């Protein structure tokens, strides 16, 4: 396990360095999208329409924040369970999506798409939304404003802490770590 500082965007080149178990601080632009935004993006693709954000070398954070108090960029902002986006993720990865930030296990189809597209799945610590909000400096709703917390937001993050769960060779920290500590 090593600690790295990465300036976004993630690319084929810089994701090669990321190995399952690495601790990474991200700085730059990421976008939020969760259940309802994914459903809408999927419907747009089915109709042959453009997506509101470009997927190429993009990083999506599966997160719906609590409202910001006056003078603050965002409220509590921790990851949601990634598996609910598994139905839509392979299609977005095939369109160039490079990074996903969430928590929890992914489907085989997503794991295959990560390796196929040399992407990466990162976890932020679930339930640490107050702490994580401190690494978010600026936010702006860029699409689907009517979805409230589920709108697509552009976030400027500084040293946002994540852990590499699935690297682009398909190594999965959840499987490795479990074996290291399982005693039954």
């Amino acid at each position, binding site marked *: 396990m090593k600690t790295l500082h990465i300036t976004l965007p993630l690319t084929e080149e810089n994701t090669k360095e990321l190995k399952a178990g690495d601790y990474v601080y991200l700085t730059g632009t990421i976008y939020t999208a969760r259940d309802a935004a994914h459903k809408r993006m999927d419907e747009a693709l089915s109709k042959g329409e453009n997506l509101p954000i470009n997927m190429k070398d993009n990083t999506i954070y599966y997160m719906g924040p609590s409202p910001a108090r006056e003078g603050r960029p965002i409220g509590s902002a*921790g990851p949601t369970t990634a598996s609910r986006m598994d139905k839509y993720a392979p299609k977005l990865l095939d369109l160039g999506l490079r990074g996903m930030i969430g928590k929890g296990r992914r489907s085989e189809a997503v794991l295959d798409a990560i390796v196929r597209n040399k992407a990466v799945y990162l976890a932020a610590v679930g*339930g640490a939304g107050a702490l994580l909000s401190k690494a978010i400096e600026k936010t702006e709703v860029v699409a689907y404003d009517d979805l409230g917390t589920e709108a697509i937001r552009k976030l400027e993050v500084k040293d946002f802490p994540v852990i590499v769960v699935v690297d682009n060779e398909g190594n999965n920290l959840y499987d490795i770590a479990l074996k290291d500590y399982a005693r039954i």
Partner: protein
Amino acid sequence: MRELSVDKITEAVRDMCIEANHELADDMKKAFSLGKEKEESPLGKQIFEQLEENLKIAHEDMIPICQDTGMAVVFVNIGQDVHLTGGSLTDAINEGVRRGYVEGYLRKSVVSDPIERINTKDNTPAIIHTEIVEGDKVEITVAPKGFGSENMSRVFMLKPADGIEGVRNAILTAVKDAGPNACPPMVIGVGIGGTFEKCALMAKKALTRDAGSHSEIEWVRKLEEEILEDINKSGIGPGGLGGTVTALAVNVLTYPTHIAGLPVGINICCHVNRHAHREL
């Protein structure tokens, strides 16, 4: 008969929604520090430190502990010598939830219909469980429940022949399936006995009992202690990133059941096991 205006209930529910989402009760804080001591994985220990730092920031800066500020589950024990005045109890509780979530900058996570899915924009309605009890007080517990862990909860309708071993297997299966999805270190609420719905309700209620407390029934206390040890041997660890502390507590409630059945409800909660309590 004592009269109590439902406005008092609205006010209390509002305050409890905000309080529960910004500060964990002392039992959970204690469970965090015990967990951190017991955790053997360096990364696991680091995650415990982050969770403690998170609680500190939440409290000092008034940022919710978790962005999923939950669906408001409200337990109300109404003394049979109380006369509630000024409107309906249900409306009063929902008004308290509405004010708490709107005025407290909490996330609105409730949709009006499970299929059409339109956000109600004020986090109502609450899930309300009322019970009539002796006395002239009204006791309210507000337990906002996040769905990362709620989604991993289970009901098993076991056979009587499955016995205590069947119960253990059911709990372990639910926890292992939940794994990293349920934001470990978890708190596990278990209801054994009753009917299909009774075991699920007991499991939910068990989560509001203090972490670290134990049942007064001998075999239940033993089950709580032993299954917690077994869960912590699973290797899942804090954040699901490997470790020796996967759960902080297992709380079990039991109830008489039918000669043909052994229902087991398992309500999984993340480390943000929120519950605020008031007596009016």
